[in-house]
């Protein structure tokens, strides 16, 4: 099939999922299966004096109760997988169940295993834990002060890491004509996938193999880490990620809970299932963001930007999560200059332990925060010098001719044309007319705001050497096997593991185009460590750029071999064979051809292969990209604010994203929409709230506001295509662009609307009350 790449095909996955034929973790039923629940700490910080489990154990149907002490020496701590170098990183061991101290509300204290989940849940109430409650610390800047409680007694000032990149001399800032300073808080939010986390363990006592189904964005990383934690050979641990209802970063983490389920299944020699409750999810699953960002942007009065100096104080929670240490350092700190050619930049990051749930990567992981601070401060700079924010952006954009471009922090941007999406967005908005309308409505007392975010982000987590240099405990290359059966039907094994992205569709399109066969002839296999040799996961918008590229290369190799066989059968030289529309054709000799299916049969039967050729038609690829990919674009929001109530209405949302070559515009647009919803959610509605003593006050969906479809106008989305040179598909990443860009776009729009009151910042989320107060306290009131 030709021209499949770039076609808006409907998702191959949907008929199955929409008709209730998906297989999610909770759909898995195994004979003799037991059910697990985890007793979690109600205190943010306490010493465990004693655990009374006798009553629970007496309860009919309860099979076992494990405490941290029971597991001591039998199961290791769960480590972080991002050991950022040169940061004086101090990793406190996180045992699967707390042993002496609990360090956040939600910290695991006991594991209860029972014949059914209701018995297990009821037994939870029968366990009595004697705690000695200790003072807690919640806020990261407070946690660094002298004399505050220490989360881990031996880690001074609660500082988990202190990292620096780049240098900006004081003179540059001091001597600059204009310096704009602001402190932004990118608040803690919850990834909140539709499906909570889950794990099911099954142990085969005969073979000694442990199978673990779990909600993982990276089953092979789970296998690698958990084999160590559980003390089981990597070859005897099989991790499978079933269908998943989203992850958004919250399912990257290797959690203590999955280790517990695996341990119990092996110990009891019976399958064990654990499904996280929604309320449990709020305290037991990694959160995102929680970074206080102090920015100084210096430059000339004509709008020339010279230097940016940033300090990020990040709340890492009570333990280092799987990727937690890398988010506010590498992901954030190297991207602080955004899409602009700013010659000097520096970032200093403190990662701080607090008595809160750990934070980890959440959709965008560091890039939304980096984009937020640069896009917000650039608007404030424009306001300071009285320049249109669009003009200031244009003046400082990295020029199209400058690519590949090395930013001030040393990252090499692969390709870009930042004006292109900006122009397209302005055209869609009808910008000049819109500004005119804003002025007119302002005379009628209406508050209209227009905000932009011209972002660039680092995606396609790829080059292994770079991963090593930045302390990431993984190879981050990808692999794929394309196996052609005698009938010409194809099975494709893919390293990256989907959880809602639609890999079966987009990767299927790549194979269909390459092999010239119908989509229906292609089956894709994901997410099982036993059938797939390796994979480094789906996060950082890397699946298509790295995993899809691996699929593409493997498919090319299949064609290469098939061509040799066709040439042999057609008695032509290989150079004379043209492969088009699924047919190998001798150039200039009509009728002299073989179909892909015929060659598939020949290869598998191997009755008559070229001299020395091995049988079968199958190819594997291991793709290690030379660089990251850097998608970019322009997002614009138009808001109207009700002066009397502070209520914000999102009137329009226009986005033009350049994610390189788009494999499927329909699914790409879907990704952008979802990303925008989560970014706008952060700006306007979502926010974790802790009390001073570490109790989570926003621990239900009544108290934590998730974005809903009716909060949004029709999103006006489009793409420009600037291919990436670092992978054969030319693809960049699309999964996180919406989130990365939209937080700043909406905030800038609101600040633009509140310009008459000279409001410069309001802490997110922008509840009506906060906006109303800002208006009341603003100039002219």
């Amino acid at each position, binding site marked *: 099939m030709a021209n499949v790449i770039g076609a808006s095909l409907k998702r191959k996955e949907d008929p199955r999922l929409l008709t209730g034929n998906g297989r999610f973790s909770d759909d898995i039923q195994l004979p003799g299966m037991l059910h697990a629940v985890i007793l979690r700490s*109600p205190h943010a910080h306490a010493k465990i004096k004693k655990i009374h489990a006798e009553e629970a154990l007496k309860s009919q149907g309860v099979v076992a109760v494990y405490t941290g002490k029971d597991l001591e020496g039998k199961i290791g701590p769960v480590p972080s997988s991002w050991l950022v170098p040169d940061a004086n990183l101090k990793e406190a061991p996180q045992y699967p169940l707390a042993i002496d101290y609990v360090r956040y509300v939600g910290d695991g204290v006991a594991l209860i295993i029972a014949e059914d989940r209701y018995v297990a849940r009821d037994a939870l109430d029968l366990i009595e834990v004697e705690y000695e409650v200790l003072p807690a610390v919640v806020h990261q800047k407070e946690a660094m002060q002298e004399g505050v409680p220490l989360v881990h007694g031996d880690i001074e000032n609660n500082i988990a890491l202190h990292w620096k990149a780049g240098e900006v001399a004081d003179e540059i800032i001091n001597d600059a004509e204009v310096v704009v300073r602001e402190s932004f808080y990118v608040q803690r939010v919850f990834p909140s996938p539709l499906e909570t986390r889950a794990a099911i363990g099954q142990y085969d006592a005969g073979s000694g193999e442990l199978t673990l189904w779990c909600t993982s964005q990276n089953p092979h990383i789970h296998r690698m880490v958990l084999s160590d934690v559980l003390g089981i050979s990597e070859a005897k641990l099989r991790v499978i990620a079933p269908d998943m209802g989203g992850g958004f970063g919250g399912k990257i983490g290797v959690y203590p809970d999955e280790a517990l389920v695996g341990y119990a299944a092996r110990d009891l020699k019976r399958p064990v299932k654990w499904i996280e409750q929604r*309320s449990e999810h709020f305290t037991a699953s990694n959160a995102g963001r929680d970074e206080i960002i102090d920015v100084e942007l210096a430059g000339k009065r004509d709008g020339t930007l010279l230097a940016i100096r940033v300090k990020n104080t990040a709340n890492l929670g009570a333990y280092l999560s799987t990727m937690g240490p890398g988010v506010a350092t590498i992901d954030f700190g190297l991207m602080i200059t955004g899409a602009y050619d700013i010659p000097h930049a520096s970032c200093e990051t403190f990662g701080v332990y607090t008595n809160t749930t750990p934070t980890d990567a959440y959709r965008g992981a560091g890039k939304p925060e980096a984009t937020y601070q640069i896009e917000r401060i650039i608007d404030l700079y424009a306001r300071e010098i009285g320049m249109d924010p669009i003009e200031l952006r244009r003046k400082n954009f990295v020029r199209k001719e400058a690519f590949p471009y090395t930013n001030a922090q040393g990252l090499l941007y692969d390709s870009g044309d930042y004006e292109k999406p900006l122009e397209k967005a302005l055209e869609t908005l009808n910008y000049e007319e819109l500004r005119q309308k804003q002025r007119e409505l302002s005379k009628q007392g209406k508050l209209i705001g227009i905000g932009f975010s011209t972002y660039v982000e680092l995606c396609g987590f790829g080059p292994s050497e770079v991963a090593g240099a930045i302390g990431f405990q993984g190879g981050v290359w990808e692999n794929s096997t394309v196996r052609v059966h005698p009938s010409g039907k194809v099975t494709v094994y893919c390293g990256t593991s989907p959880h809602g992205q639609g890999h079966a569709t987009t990767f299927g399109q790549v194979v269909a185009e390459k092999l010239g066969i119908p989509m229906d002839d292609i089956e894709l296999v994901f997410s099982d460590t036993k059938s797939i040799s390796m994979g480094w996961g789906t996060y950082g918008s890397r699946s298509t750029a790295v995993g899809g590229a691996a699929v593409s290369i493997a498919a090319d190799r299949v064609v290469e071999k098939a061509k040799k066989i066709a040439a042999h059968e057609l008695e032509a030289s290989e150079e004379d064979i043209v492969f088009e529309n699924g047919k190998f054709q001798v150039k200039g000799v009509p009728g002299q051809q073989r179909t892909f299916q015929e060659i598939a049969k020949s290869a598998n039967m191997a009755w008559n292969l070229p001299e020395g050729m091995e049988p079968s038609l199958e190819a594997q690829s291991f793709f290690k990209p030379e660089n990251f990919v850097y998608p970019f674009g322009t997002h614009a929001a138009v808001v109207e604010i009700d002066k009397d109530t502070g209520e914000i209405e999102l009137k329009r949302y226009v986005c033009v994203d350049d994610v390189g070559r788009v494999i499927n515009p329909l699914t790409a647009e879907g990704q952008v929409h979802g990303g925008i919803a989560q970014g706008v959610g952060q700006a306007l509605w979502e926010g974790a709230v802790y*009390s001073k003593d570490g109790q989570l*006050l926003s621990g*239900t969906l009544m108290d934590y506001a998730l974005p809903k479809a009716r909060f949004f106008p029709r999103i006006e989305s489009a793409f420009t295509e600037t291919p990436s040179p670092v992978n054969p598909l030319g693809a960049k990443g699309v999964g996180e662009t919406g989130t990365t860009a939209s937080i700043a776009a909406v905030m800038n729009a609101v600040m633009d609307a509140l310009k008459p009151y000279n409001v410069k910042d309001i802490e997110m989320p922008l509840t009506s009350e906060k906006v109303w107060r800002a208006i009341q306290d603003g100039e002219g009131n």
Partner: protein
Amino acid sequence: MNIESSYTFKGVSQELLWKTLQDKESLRRSLPGCKSFEEIAPHTYKSELGINIGPVKGVFTGDVRQVDIKEPESYRLLVIGKGKPGEIDAKADMVLEETEAGTTLICRAEVKVTGVLAAAGQRVMSGVAKVILGQFFKDIEKETKEMAKL
């Protein structure tokens, strides 16, 4: 979280109110949803309360200790409660002020909660506490009448 509530017992003397508030039986009858109430040491009680107001639902077991007793003006209650929805740790100053109308009982409490009480209940906790205290004050008022007959 701070909770403050007061109630004026009309025509009740400070002394009579004090006596009622110190009487075990009166307290047992007045504590909302009281399932048990026993003195385990001087000025230290163990109790079980069944409470059902919105998300604050379930049986709470609690230790209540009276300290800083200044008869008949004031005392301090230290309450540690435990129930399925979470734990409560409260310190309440109880002040009895004699006025022309009678005696006003002022309760100023600093309350810490955990679990569902914190996550979901905090929004309504002060309202719930006021309802419970109001009920308690009214019942104590009845008890003062019984006490006056003795």
